[in-house]
């Protein structure tokens, strides 16, 4: 396991980023989705981004991935501005989006093929398949995989490029509760093994507390980071510990989901 343990994380700086889209009901006006987003991630940090649906979490992730460009503001990886998609920023969606025409092994090595480095790094393919426990399914097509297995394959596919930052867009959102909890540990294990920077978009408050170093709460319209909460709990965390539950009720209160008391 040589390559897997290398430290190659990178910091991320997002400064006053704005993004608007044409409003769907009125094509002449534009809707401000992100209205001055600023935050930064230290190298190797795991930070969650939570917020109501439609607040622009996915838009922000696409900007960081380089798939879209911001109207104004700066996005920096280390000290380099983000201009286009790049293998150094991995992205995993809620839908695993495995290429159905490729076997699991070929899906996982897709990044190496795309960058033309398959020959030099061929041995890493087996390593990453072992890392996510899919060696046995190497020659299986994705439609045979369960949701959790497909998402593990998608994680391996993103990790094989040794991204400096991994962007996760509700990666466990489509899984059932048990598979999801198992996969949370899986992602944490990968994060600790790879020491990569991770930005996790989720709508699951427990998941955010269980996994991240910090939690950023976004507001909807205008899309802004309203509050950042540090999670100072030792790992591995207990989902039923008093501190965990206190933090949970703080956040629920903040989001006005705690109910009348």
């Amino acid at each position, binding site marked *: 396991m040589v390559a897997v343990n290398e430290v190659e994380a990178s910091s991320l700086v997002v400064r006053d980023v704005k993004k608007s889209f044409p409003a769907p009901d009125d094509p002449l006006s534009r809707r401000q989705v992100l209205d001055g987003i600023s935050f930064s991630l230290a190298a190797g940090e795991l930070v969650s981004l939570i917020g109501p649906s439609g607040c622009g979490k996915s838009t922000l992730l*696409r900007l960081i*991935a*380089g*798939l879209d460009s911001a109207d104004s503001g700066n996005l920096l990886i280390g000290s380099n501005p983000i201009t286009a*998609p*790049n*293998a150094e*920023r*991995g*992205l995993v*969606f809620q*839908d695993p*989006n495995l*290429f*159905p*025409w*490729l076997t699991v092994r070929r899906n996982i090595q*897709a*990044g190496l*093929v*795309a*960058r033309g480095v398959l020959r030099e790094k061929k041995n890493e393919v087996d390593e990453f398949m072992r890392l996510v*426990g899919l060696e*046995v*399914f190497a020659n299986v*097509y*994705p*439609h*045979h*995989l*369960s949701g959790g*297995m497909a998402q593990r394959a998608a994680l391996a*596919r*993103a990790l094989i*490029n040794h991204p400096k930052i991994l962007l996760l867009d509700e990666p466990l959102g489509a899984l059932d509760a048990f598979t999801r909890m198992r996969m949370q540990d899986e992602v944490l294990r990968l994060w600790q093994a790879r020491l990569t920077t991770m930005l996790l978009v989720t709508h699951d408050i427990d998941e955010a507390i269980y996994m991240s170093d910090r939690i950023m709460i976004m507001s909807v319209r205008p899309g802004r980071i309203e509050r950042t909460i540090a999670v100072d709990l030792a790992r591995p965390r207990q989902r039923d510990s008093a501190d965990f539950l206190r933090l949970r009720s703080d956040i629920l209160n903040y989001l006005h989901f705690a109910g009348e008391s």
Partner: protein
Amino acid sequence: MEAKEDLVPTAVFEPPSVLRWRTMLAVPVAAALALALHLLIAKRELPLETHSYRLFFIEIIGVSIVLALLRRFSPALRRWMASMWPIFTAAIVIVCVWDVITLGLRLLPLPYFPGPSAVLRSLINDRALLLDSTWHSLGLLLSGYTLGVIAGLISGICIGWSSPIRYWGMPILKVVGPVPATAWIPLALVLSPSAIVSSAALIALAVWFPVTMLTSSGISNTRASYLDVARTLGAGRWYLIFRVAIPAALPNIFIGLFMGLGASFLTLVVAESVGVKSGLGWYVSWAQGWAEYGKVFAALIIMAAFFSTIMTILFKARDRVLVWQKGVIKW
């Protein structure tokens, strides 16, 4: 690990898998009946005229009895017999009915509707010319089809991928495409010195349109998230086109290939009967000119076998290429 359960389609006709006695006997019995009826009907005919037809049925009876005896040794043979024998029996019955209607009851006017024995005789007597014609048809079909597929794939990929090319290419496609390739025959015969070359070009044109249409729609409908994922994996344009968009479009491309194949059969036969001086289409109109309808039917039978074989090959190729799709789409 848990594997997803395969969805089982509910209403599927399962061919019989157990070989029953009555299934096994159906073929020789039907053949014997057809032969007996024929002998009854054809008493007035010259024995030489119907000799091969009788021989044909005797062979069927013989082979089916031999296979019935061999079935113990091969489960594959048993399965094949169980699934195919009902079809063969029906085919024998149809030939027998045809024989009765034409030769027996003389319900259909001659010489336009010869009986199966006359068609079989033409088939055997003229086999050299028929084989030669099939060979020529195959050459013309393959050259035209290959040309059309290559052109269609190239234009389809360009139109599907690039919006400027789509802007300028689509109107041409929409105006020129729907015109049947056979409508260009007068022009093609004038433009090209060789009927073979112009026919190949017409077949290519007939194939080009559906292949282009389906390829471009498949490419432009590639799921955006596949392209996004590929880009975050470090993919350049070459990878996006050839490793993402084209594989994603393959199911559509195959529909285009099938439609193009059908169009190419039509164009081939028309082109051969008006311009080209060889091939099965030419043979049919030539035999018709001599009022030898036995030969016309013989050529039609060859054509049916020829075209359906080519179609089957394309189906097999699709099943192999789209093996990843199993369980996603059934067609």
